């Protein structure tokens, strides 16, 4: 879709003239248009959050129960029975601190992958930049994250852990987890329109990814020489970053982080373009 802005009236960002024609070749990613639809983005996120725990008995407590009990089970089996080393940090908080970004990521990935197929009643009836759907889906997980974060604060108080200045970098790692989910989610969302195989792949993929990420163990278990390569999994950087920022564990290695960032940027750019290429067919194929 080619859009050119002529005279801008009171609606700054809505183009004055729209040209609709078949798309050929290279399709530019129109992030400006997504910005113009930021209110819709907000409302879709807000809807996801509102609807998620409607008509449930304990409501938003689910956001706490899930990571909390996963933490308990991990602590018993990996921490207590298998004696997985946790670099001197009490195992429960060691694992909970990693479970938070992990669950944020896993949730965002699942939601964004399903975002286009899940909103087909919108896609086939009204126009909006299709990118809004996966982005809104990703943002919806942040509220759950904030709720379960409160438990982490309680645990830190319990173990008497006071974070250092590194805590200021925490938002960066949160952002990084979300962007990683979006980058992969864009590919899967577009693929899901054509191939519903994605639905089955997703659970499987998330499970494998969890074990490839240092959630239940520390990345120091990975031999020194392999750690940079370990950065190919961006979530390794995120999880270690969380532990560094909150628990004062050793900082994640610079090369590992750089590899992670490079991977995410590549996957994101690729995802944006693949999505832009496929979005014209969404309404017809979904």
């Amino acid at each position, binding site marked *: *879709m080619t859009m050119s802005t002529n005279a801008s009236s009171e*609606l700054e960002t*809505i183009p*004055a*003239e*729209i*040209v*609709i*024609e*078949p*798309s050929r070749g290279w399709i530019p990613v129109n992030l400006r248009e997504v910005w113009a639809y930021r*209110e*819709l983005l*907000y*409302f*879709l996120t*807000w*809807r996801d959050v*509102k*609807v998620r725990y*409607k*008509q449930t008995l304990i409501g938003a407590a689910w956001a706490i129960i899930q990571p909390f009990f996963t933490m308990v089970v991990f602590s018993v089996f990996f921490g207590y029975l298998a004696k997985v080393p946790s670099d001197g940090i009490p195992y429960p908080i060691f694992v909970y601190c990693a479970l938070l970004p992990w669950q944020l990521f896993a949730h965002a990935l699942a939601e964004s992958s399903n975002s286009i197929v899940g909103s087909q*009643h*919108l*896609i*086939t*009836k*009204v*126009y*909006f930049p299709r990118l809004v759907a996966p982005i809104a889906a990703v943002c919806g997980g942040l509220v759950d994250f904030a709720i379960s974060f409160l438990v982490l604060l309680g645990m830190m108080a319990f173990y008497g852990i006071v974070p250092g200045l590194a805590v200021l970098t925490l938002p960066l790692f949160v952002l990084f987890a979300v962007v990683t989910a979006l980058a992969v989610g864009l590919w899967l969302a577009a693929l899901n*329109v*054509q*191939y*519903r*195989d994605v639905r089955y792949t997703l659970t499987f993929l998330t499970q494998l990814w969890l074990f490839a990420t240092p959630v239940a163990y520390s990345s120091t278990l990975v031999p020194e020489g392999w750690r940079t390569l370990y950065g190919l999994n961006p979530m390794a950087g995120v999880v270690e970053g969380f532990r560094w920022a909150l628990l004062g564990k050793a900082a994640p290695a610079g090369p590992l982080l750089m590899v992670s960032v490079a991977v995410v940027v590549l996957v994101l750019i690729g995802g944006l373009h693949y999505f832009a290429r496929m979005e*014209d*067919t969404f*309404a*017809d*194929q*979904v």
Partner: protein
Amino acid sequence: MDDVAIRCEGLGKLYCIGERERYRALRDTLTEALYAPVRRLHSLVRGSNNGAAAERDITFWALRDVSFEVRYGEVVGIIGRNGAGKSTLLKVLSRITKPTEGRVRIKGRVGSLLEVGTGFHPELTGRENIYLNGAILGMRKAEIDRKFDEIVAFAEVERFIDTPVKRYSSGMYVRLAFAVAAHLEPEILLVDEVLAVGDAAFQKKCLGKMGDVAKEGRTILFVSHNMTAVQSLCGRAIWLQGGQVVQQGDAAVVATEYLQTTAESCLVQAWPDPQDAPGNEKVRIHGARVVDLDGAPIAMIDTRTPFSIEFSYWNLKEGAHLNLAVSLYNQEEVCVFTTTTVNEPRWHGKAFPAGLYRSVCHVPGNLLNDGSYRAVLLVVRDLANILYCHQDIVVFEVQDSAEGRGKWYGKWSGAVRPELNWSTERLSSRMNVGLTAGSRRGR
């Protein structure tokens, strides 16, 4: 293109039916990818182009070579049968789907209404859904804030505004959904059949609102099956058939033309040979026609048009006292009237010599309501014995007339639609006296 709001040039949309009906599994693509080289090789060897032929089978043009212009402030109706491409056209114009060829230029803020209540979530309350739906339709939050009370009042759901919409009755749901849509204020509005919902009173309100919007000088593209609405709201109409424009121009002309070709009427029946004409040894039917008052074939009957039905028949029994009875049934199979020839001045009550006869029944204008009618003919002897009964001797359509309706565009209720005389007088200027005296006697 100074005053052109929408310019469509050679628009085409090709659908692959196979892809549209079901989604592909990865397996299909993989097997296709494996087989494609084999197939290509095969067709190379045979020197034919089978691949392309197979492709043609599963594709169809939902739109082809559609060109038109819409000027600012114009209200244009898009008409056509189901599957003519009307909805596809709106989908392309509202940017939901891409055209396969051609180009559209649209100048101005576009709002499209392909259905009411897009994005409504059953778990959310009426209030929440107004905001959500408004945002989906392209309204700003500030705009929704401003119009909120108006929307709620229009939908008549004040008491339930904080109830989840899943607890709404379907009528309330639709009213709320339409209310949001009706308060959309784009420069160009694309509307698809959304008016076909809700009860009659609400339809009236919706069409009234559409009329208001049209009067404000907004550009509207309106897809509808309701010819009355098209004729009264639109200045121009575009008639699509098989994805192509059949005719465009003045709405009344195009709609009339469309109705004529689509009505399933049987205005003329004729059996020239008495040997195989329907009937029996006493009477046989020669034919029947629906004609205008001068006896010429009639193109279209609307609720105001007077017309005639002609019956011709052979009397085979010398000296029989014949009369005809005609019953007219509407779509609901209600017998609207039965009329007989007993008032006929020339032949009634006389003995009919053998021969061919013609009887004409005049049906005045302002009698029948719009709809489809069938006539049943009875040939009767001595006012009591039915000699022959012929079902559906003629079938015709009475079109709606836009005149005399005021601002009501919905279905006009009633088996008949007579034009009756009314009179109103003012009885008093004092409220209390007027009430007691007037209301008791008024009815």
